[in-house]
């Protein structure tokens, strides 16, 4: 469900955005309507919101809340006669699992190793796409294609390309003289992690590129002209004009992508299935494995740990980047 996870943009973004919008672009009606409070208006809001709210409540929230309480129960598909409350036992079983350390380390490597190259390459692409050229529209459409493909299928595409015997990656590397013998990419934990990170970079760069490009296009030309008049070089302009100006977009895009990459078992599931020997499991793929073993209690505990981790991260990340955002407006 990669794209759905992308959702996060909206709600979080909307507030800082308004500051960025041109003053006076949208005056009047919103302020005016705020004061007008009638039952009719309330009914209209309720009626328009109801279908969406009911669907999400019944098919998303209800199962999620029901699933969360399993984290505090003995809940095993292999033994459904006993679903008693067990307190924090499931969490204890997660922490004492021999795989926990590896999974945690992998998750960190997966998130950081995905975010950094995606941000850097995406930023570079956006800078280079800022200048108009013929076929720029076609170019953008072409590099957007990875977004049409599911994470699971991307895993499969790269699993085939990284195949140790008949994979095209080994063939190309041998032709280029970079390796002498075929490399068993997906059989070695470190190389497998590198391979899944390459696949995720292939997939994720575009999102950064389009978000940053859109932000770059909102930087007023006068700022660049002023910088040029002051004799600022390219690097200085980039770090002192461009980056501060698009800070809000950068912060929110990174935040959204971290949440999303964390919750993105699809690619690894399709590419390595967490193998070899559980060595490429991240928290969410490990959760799939535990679910498949029927141990819903332990899997739910893991899920709640993911939520707690992401909430903590969101709060810290927004706090750490907040001050500078206010300076901007």
């Amino acid at each position, binding site marked *: *469900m990669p*794209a*759905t996870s*992308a*959702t996060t*943009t*909206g709600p979080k973004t909307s507030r800082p955005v308004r500051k*960025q919008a041109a003053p006076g672009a*949208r005056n*009047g*009606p*919103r302020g005016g*309507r705020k004061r007008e409070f009638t039952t009719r208006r309330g009914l*209209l*809001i309720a009626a328009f*919101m109801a*279908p*969406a*709210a009911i669907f*999400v409540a*019944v098919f*998303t929230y209800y*199962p*999620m809340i*029901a*699933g969360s309480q*399993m984290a505090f129960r003995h809940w095993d598909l292999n033994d459904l006669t006993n679903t008693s409350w067990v307190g924090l036992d499931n969490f204890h079983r997660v922490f004492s699992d021999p795989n926990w350390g590896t999974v945690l380390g992998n998750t960190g490597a997966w998130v950081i190793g995905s975010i950094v190259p995606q941000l850097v390459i995406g930023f*570079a*692409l956006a800078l280079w796409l800022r*200048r108009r050229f013929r076929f720029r529209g076609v*170019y*953008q*459409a072409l590099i*957007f*294609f990875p977004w*049409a493909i*599911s994470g*699971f*299928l991307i895993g499969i595409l*790269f699993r*085939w390309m990284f195949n140790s015997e*008949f994979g095209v990656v080994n063939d190309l590397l041998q032709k280029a003289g970079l390796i002498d013998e075929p490399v068993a990419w997906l059989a070695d934990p470190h190389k497998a992690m590198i391979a899944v990170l390459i696949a995720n970079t*292939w997939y994720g760069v575009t999102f950064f590129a389009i978000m940053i490009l*859109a*932000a770059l296009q*909102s930087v007023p030309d006068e700022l*660049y002209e002023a910088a040029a008049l002051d004799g600022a070089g*390219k690097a200085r302009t980039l770090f002192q004009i461009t980056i501060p100006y698009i800070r809000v977009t950068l912060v929110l895009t990174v935040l959204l992508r971290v*949440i999303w990459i964390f*919750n993105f078992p699809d690619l690894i599931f399709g590419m390595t299935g967490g193998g070899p020997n559980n060595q490429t499991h991240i928290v*969410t793929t490990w*959760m799939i494995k535990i*679910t498949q073993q029927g141990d*819903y209690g332990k*899997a739910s505990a*893991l*899920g709640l740990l*993911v939520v707690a981790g*992401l*909430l903590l991260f969101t709060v810290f990340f927004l706090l750490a980047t907040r001050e500078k955002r206010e300076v901007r407006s």
Partner: protein
Amino acid sequence: MIGKETAVGRAVRIVFLVLWLAFTVFPLYWIAITSLKAPGDIFSFPLAYWPEHFSLENYSELFNKADFGTYLTNSLIVATVAGAVATAISMLSAYVLARFEFRTKSALLTAALVTQMIPAFIALGPLYLLMTDLKLVDNRLGLILVYIAVCIPFCTVMLRGFFENIPDALEEAAMIDGLSRFAALFRVLLPVMRPGIVAAFIFNFVNCWNELFLSVTLMNSDANKTTPTALNGFISSFNIDWGSMSAAAVFTILPTMVLFAFASRHIVQGLTSGAVKG
């Protein structure tokens, strides 16, 4: 807009853009080429980057061996209906969120954000039980209902961005002319919103078309499986049949790629309009 470009800068830019394009397109090219090789040629050296003999054998194999036509039909029905209904429902919620200020608004938006933080797998067990109670397990309608709920949060946010770009004056004028708000929405705003609606629908469609884990959980009979479930079936055995797999992958990717090519500009606009205004 940006300073003059030096010759070196231009060369670097072009080389980088070309390399990235090649890197992006190559995996798609490679799976397509693999699918068009005769099954035996896939596993022969040296690897052919342009096969001497093209063959459709993998495709005929795919439709003979697995009931791939049925899976494609199921995916098409589920993704179209769920995508369309989710778009319609999200239009209403997006409209309200774009045009009104009310007390529960930020709570609703936070609720949408939180759905993104919770791993889907935590909900699968209870969802299965719920669908069992509703007698909607292994039923296309059941999957459609779940997919609608999955699509709504993002679709609402995306459409809200589009609504905010349309001046309020438009429907106000219509309402002064005596139309109800509902009528104003449909007769005046809908036509203006068409690109946004198309983009939102395509986004929903692609999401549902690609969805794997919910489908695997809810659909167990062969007659009701969707294509990602079938692809998953190909890898559960020890040896992956890369011939059929590549053909199936092409069939799964092609429709969504065509849709994206058709609407990528609007989708980009939808993704960025919430985050960036310029």
